[in-house]
């Protein structure tokens, strides 16, 4: 073998550590064939209790791609403090699905942390760069956990759940929006989305208000997240000006076009949504303030009460919020403080500021200090200074010798070439 050490360095960190967890993972995998695994913590795989850091781009949602033949996972997507994310971090697929891993940034690999007992997925250990891709077909039911070796420490981890579509729940559509309502997606966070998906299944006609109050103005779709049955006609009604409806994504075989021309109050249009899945759309003029929304077509999975919270929508960190609030409070306090400091001070200055064109006495300064005894150049020898700098000189020499010959040359590992 040409470079044994080099190869070994690409070995899978933590693979042994995870063996004990495999049984639990398999159990989890079968649980995932049920319906309630819309959210799961994968035994803490995405937290820093597992090897590596917290996976920031995992928001608690497993993206459901069951029923699709081919699924893509992006390697090196934005997240985890750089281009250190698998996107989606967790995905659920049906057995036999081919997953393609596509590199969009440099120096990543796909190292397998754990997988079902009788599965033999090898991931892709060599480090690859942008433009590389490989595919694997997953047959064995269960949970596959993997990570990127160079970036494990920042939380570049992923998971794949291979699950059967479950019986009567086969046509259920979970309310999974990825990061659509957060500011990780294009545009701002959606303030009027509170994590609830409004369930209007079973109704033939449903209305969405365009330009409702929210997001810092009349910049909201209401409701922002909506669930309807297949075949429902959704009517969009403008209640304020200059909005449109642009489709961000929709199920693969759906062909909803939204309404791209910009319209004003009073306009409306309707669309009948037949294909199951999640439709995401936004208002182009107001995307940046978070005028985004989604419609789920299809029944909710059991126990998935209209969709759980999909990611956090905190636009500001607590620190910045505190600083900002503190600054505003301080600014409001200033007049109060000024009143305090000026409580005994007369409004008109005591000094004479003169008449037009003629300077006055102005602010009075303290008198110039008079020396106790005047000391001229010729009668002054800085004896004390000479003593002090002599002491300083000796300290410098002693410290230099100590630092150079004891601390430095006496230190381990001298660079000799």
């Amino acid at each position: 073998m040409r470079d044994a050490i080099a190869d070994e360095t690409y070995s899978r960190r933590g693979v042994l550590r995870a063996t004990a967890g495999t049984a639990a993972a398999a159990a989890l995998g079968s649980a995932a064939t049920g319906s309630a695994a819309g959210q799961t913590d994968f035994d803490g795989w995405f937290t820093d209790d597992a090897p590596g850091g917290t996976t920031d781009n995992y928001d608690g949602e497993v993206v459901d791609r069951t029923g699709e033949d081919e699924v893509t996972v992006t390697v090196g997507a934005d997240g985890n403090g750089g281009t250190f994310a698998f996107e989606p971090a967790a995905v659920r697929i049906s057995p036999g699905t081919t997953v393609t891993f596509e590199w969009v940034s440099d120096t990543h690999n796909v190292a397998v942390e754990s997988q079902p007992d009788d599965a033999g997925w090898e991931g892709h250990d060599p480090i690859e760069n942008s433009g590389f891709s490989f595919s694997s077909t997953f047959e064995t039911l269960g949970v596959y956990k993997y990570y990127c070796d160079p970036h494990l420490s920042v939380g570049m981890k992923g998971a794949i759940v291979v699950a059967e579509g479950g019986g009567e729940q086969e046509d259920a559509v979970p309310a999974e929006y990825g990061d659509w309502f957060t500011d990780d997606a294009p545009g701002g966070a959606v303030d009027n989305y509170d994590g609830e998906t409004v369930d209007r299944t079973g109704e033939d006609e449903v209305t969405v208000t365009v330009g409702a109050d929210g997001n810092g103005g009349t910049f909201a779709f209401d409701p922002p997240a909506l669930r309807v049955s297949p075949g429902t006609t959704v009517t969009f009604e403008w209640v304020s000006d200059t909005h449109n409806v642009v489709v961000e994504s929709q199920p693969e075989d759906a062909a909803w076009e939204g309404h791209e021309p910009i319209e004003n109050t009073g306009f409306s249009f309707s669309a009948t949504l037949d294909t199951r899945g999640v439709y995401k759309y936004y208002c182009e003029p107001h995307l940046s303030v978070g005028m985004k929304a989604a419609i789920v077509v299809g029944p909710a999975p059991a126990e998935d009460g209209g969709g759980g919270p999909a990611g956090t929508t905190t636009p500001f960190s607590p620190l910045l919020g505190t600083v900002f609030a503190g600054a505003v409070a301080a600014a409001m306090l200033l007049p109060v403080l000024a009143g305090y400091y000026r409580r005994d001070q007369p409004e008109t200055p005591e000094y004479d500021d003169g008449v037009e064109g003629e300077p006055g006495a102005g602010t009075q300064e303290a008198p110039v200090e008079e020396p106790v005894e005047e000391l001229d150049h010729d009668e002054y020898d800085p004896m004390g200074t000479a003593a002090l700098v002599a002491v300083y000189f000796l300290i410098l020499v002693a410290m230099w010798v100590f630092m150079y010959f004891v601390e430095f040359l006496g230190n381990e590992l001298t660079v000799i070439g």
Partner: protein
Amino acid sequence: MEIHRFEKLWLVASLLLIAGFVATIVYGAVGAGVAMVDNSGGQVAASDPTASSDFRDPGVYQTGDGEYDVYVVARQFSFTPGSGTPIRVPEGSEVTFHIASRDVTHGFNVVGTNLNTMVIPGQVAQLTVEFDDARSYHVACNEYCGAAHHDMTGTIEVVPAEDFDESEVAEA
């Protein structure tokens, strides 16, 4: 120009101090034989050092009796070798490190020792040291390199000569 006699004395003392400092450094270089990392390591492609003729696949290579070359690639946020598997060399060996980055600027500091260098994309840091004692050293990246900079650490294991596994050495 009027200068007080104390000031003249202090001027002379200051110049002596400066000359003494420079002389100490020269002694360190010539007498004690401390060499500076310089441009002798050559240049490599900033994004892919191993592709360059001046660099090799990361690993430990034997170059002579008790002499080894260690090629280390630094990247966000690990050393190869060093972070996954330790860099392992035998006690009493003279080791030349060749360290290059494949992304951003890093540092390579063997903590508590004088082995310390910047790792700048496109440049190879080449340093030779002698490992006299069998012990383990902690390696830290000491230049900020991104969000998980603080996790970029590694290990050098200096093992007793009889315990050193020759099969770990890559063949040239």
